[in-house]
């Protein structure tokens, strides 16, 4: 049925090992959980050097604040103000952060540090915990801020 007969079947175990994509509905979020307070520990140790003590930015992006600024002359785009889905935050941290050692965090730690960053942005309580279900349930402030490609927009 394969027209060229090229390639070999991918096994479920192989797919599970490589498929780290998280759907915006939370699909494919792994098991595990993490608290804001553990997230603060992870962040202080592994993230603050690049993103600042309070996520205010440095070599790495600013991660906190900016809500309400997107329509102003000086928009501040952060995870809190701009990112439409919390799943994206989890997905990105797991695949790419910390920049010096990507894919090194446990799933629990990714939940924890996501929880901490969301708490810094006022989107999770200071004593909160995140797991697959609660992370998927978060409604980000800019969730409905995106529109399609309207180009050609100059006539």
């Amino acid at each position, binding site marked *: 049925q*394969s027209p*060229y007969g090229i390639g070999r079947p991918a096994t479920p175990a192989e797919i599970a090992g490589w498929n780290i994509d998280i759907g915006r509905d939370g699909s494919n979020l792994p098991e595990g959980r993490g608290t804001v307070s553990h997230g603060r520990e992870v962040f202080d140790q592994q993230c603050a050097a690049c993103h600042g003590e309070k996520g205010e930015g440095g070599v790495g992006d600013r991660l906190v604040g900016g809500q309400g600024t997107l329509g102003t002359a000086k928009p501040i785009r952060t995870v809190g103000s701009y990112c439409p889905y919390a799943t994206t935050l989890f997905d990105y941290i797991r695949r790419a952060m910390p920049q010096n050692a990507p894919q090194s965090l446990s799933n629990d730690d990714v939940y924890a540090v996501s929880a901490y960053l969301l708490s810094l942005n006022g989107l999770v309580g200071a004593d909160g915990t995140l797991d697959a279900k609660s992370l998927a349930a978060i409604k980000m402030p800019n969730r409905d801020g995106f529109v399609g490609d*309207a*180009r050609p927009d100059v006539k």
Partner: protein
Amino acid sequence: GGAVLGAGTSAAADADNLPPNIPEWMKAPGEPMGSQPYGTPSPFGKNVVKNISPNLKQYISASGRTPLQELDGIITPNGLFYERHHGGVPTIDPAQHRLMLHGLVERPLVFTMDDLRRFPSESHIYFLECSGNPVYTKPYGKTASDLVGLLSCAEWTGVSLKLVLQEAGLKPEAKWVVAEGADAAALTRSIPIEKCLDDAMLVYSQNGERLRPQQGYPVRLLLPGFEGNMNVKWLRRLHVTAEPIYSREETSKYTDLMPDGSAREFSFYMEAKSIITRPSGGQRLTTKGFQEITGIAWSGHGKIARVEVSVDGGKSWQDAQLQEPVLTRALTRFRLPWRWDGQPAVIQSRAIDETGYVQPTLAELLAVRGENHFYHNNAIWPWRIAADGEVTNAQA
């Protein structure tokens, strides 16, 4: 005679090598065969390298530009192809690289590089451009490379993505393909299935030879006309899905903020654009009289139909000659003969593509998109020529 001088033109000549003398390089044998098993440019061209800012915040997620004003024709040599990566350039052993194709397919598959090369192949000359090329706000760059150097063009060889997807068998719900790179950013973008079944390719060669590491060795996605970031390099995984994955690179980055605070997402195509590369910012006219005006034009929507050039600050426009063959979604070189009268002048080009779309001015773009739009700036870019021949950015 005089010339358009680039930044790196060497100093005045040593008369020993000028007529009637015999130049020293004729009086003894040159380098023997094999002194360069893989050739490199002349040492006298050592200034022609990628344009990399010495003041970047960090160099892991960063970009390096093609020195467009130093180049001729439409092909970018591989050594000068622009770079943009988000986790540095990985060193991948092709024998240990795998491409996994899974998700909404009948038969999830794993391919080796040898497998990918066994498929029917095809080659096309396509441009590739970063969507943030250039930004909308000052300070604007000084040279053509500073402005739009995140742009290159090569002959790509690979397999039609459609054939690879057919090998796995798409399920009816398949609407997007999520592509992931094998770099430290595991860079991820969602591609609409229509593009994947149209002209999308998995490419392993660039200008004849294997991809450079900076361009995705051993295999990358190539989406003709789509913004550079979507052409995922070091491709390791294709996940066929029903909806986009809303990856960080298609939400936080590569979306276009509008003045009202909304943002355009999934804005894939690079619209028609052009720039004069000679004479251009940083160069100098050393004589009155004949000067060719030349530059490049391109459009993600197909072929360039026409390029108009103005030498009077936009008052009047003339058709430039287009280098044949004009290819779809490739750079198109344009040329216009011109005689400089020694007076100050403002020169600029505007591209019209086969859809009839006309490259806009910066003011027109800013009026609609505002200063915070960041991506997809395809404005006309004028150069100012001073009475002493210096060429500078007329918007700066």
